[in-house]
């Protein structure tokens, strides 16, 4: 079980995000000190491929998020296809089949806004490559709640629109290359 003090990492991405996550997640160790909550927009026909793909390449545990399950440090949770992923104040995960947000379900905004409420300043959110603007409003909420807002540098992103939209909505976000984001996460692990 986690709580506000252990914090959490939340990551959102769309087009190109699987490659970007393949750069980030395998660097994390099995005792990474926070849960990692992930929303990736995936075409419906590839919906169940993410978890097995990353399980084979990561040291930390990788699973599909389940309703009412406690978010545990050292575990990466992928939002299931066709459900929004949220976090409750007590650090448990919840799913919803509410309407699409930004034409997406799961939506990055939904995860980030709920996580901002649950974790406040102990949350780090990362917007990766993508071709739409999901995550921008969520990142703004994260920063407003005192959390750390990171955005992949649009210049190096497979698709620049999503990180660019996040930077525009949340000017206080820190822009980083994927390598710098990996280094940032490694420092969290060392701390």
């Amino acid at each position, binding site marked *: 079980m986690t709580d506000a003090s252990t914090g959490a990492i939340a990551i959102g991405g769309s087009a190109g995000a699987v490659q970007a996550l393949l750069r980030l997640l395998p660097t994390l160790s099995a005792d990474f000190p926070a849960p990692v909550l992930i929303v990736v927009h995936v075409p419906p026909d590839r919906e169940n491929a993410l978890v097995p793909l990353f399980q084979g390449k990561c040291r930390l545990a990788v699973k599909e998020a389940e*309703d009412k399950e406690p978010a545990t440090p050292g575990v990466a949770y992928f939002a299931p296809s066709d459900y929004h992923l949220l976090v409750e*104040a007590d650090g448990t995960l919840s799913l919803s089949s509410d309407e699409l947000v930004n034409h997406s379900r799961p939506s990055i905004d939904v995860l980030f806004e709920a996580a901002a409420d649950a974790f406040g300043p102990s949350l780090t959110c990362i917007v990766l490559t993508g071709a739409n603007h999901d995550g921008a409003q969520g990142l703004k909420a994260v920063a407003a709640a*005192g959390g750390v807002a990171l955005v992949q540098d649009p210049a190096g992103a497979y698709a620049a629109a999503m990180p660019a939209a996040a930077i525009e909505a949340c000017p206080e976000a820190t822009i980083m290359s994927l390598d710098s984001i990996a280094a940032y996460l490694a420092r969290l692990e060392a701390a």
Partner: protein
Amino acid sequence: MSAIMRDGVEDLEIGLLLEALFRRYHYDFRSYARASIKRRLVQARDQLGFSSISALQDSLLHEPTTLGRLLGYLTVQVSEMFRDPSYFRALREKVLPHLRTYPSLKVWVAGCSHGEELYSLAILFREEGLEERTIFYATDINPAALQAAEAGVYPLDQVKKFTANHQKSGGRSSLSDYYTADYGRAIFDKSLRSRVVFSDHSLVTDAVFGEMHLISCRNVLIYFDRALQDRAIGLLRDSLARKGFLGLGSKESLRFSAHAAAFLEFSREDKIYQRQDA
């Protein structure tokens, strides 16, 4: 004001509004999973033009029309006909052969929202020759949703998806046999609801009302917190006949429920459970 203080106030306002909604109108959302309720209330506040949740609560208590508008935000869930076609295929191929052995059947769609699943089941039962011996109960807490379910009218642009789902579920007929298209709407045949009882019912505050052979309650329990999930699952169990079936949403499970032992995993992949003998 700091972000933390602001959020603390908003959470307080939400708790007060849910209490007011219960005490004034007996709609009980107090034990719903809070993150999703908060999202919906914030959306209602913004779209209904209130400056705060407290202002929305003031209107809720004093302005009769606000309740219906707010319920629209708190309860409306989008669905589609034959959503998760594999679920309906499993009902058709695995569950209906059991149901066929009964001379009369009761089927309950708990949390029917706008009726997409109800019509899906009515079509499935008609295709399989069981409709004539079945009574369907379609319940929801939102009167506007029940009216929509009773009307059976959906935007025509959704019907392409409905049709594809129906085919994938093993449909033996053409979905177009069941509706007429009119000004961008698909109006479903009223004969499909000739054996349907529509009723106001809450899994939170109401009790058992019949002995069902099949209950379909999908993507309802995920909105409840753990304790309320247990209450609702207990109610569903008590509403099932011996060896009756319970279908849940694709990401719902009885695994962590206090009532898990009362059910067999009949079709694990499809989230179909069967009540075991006590």
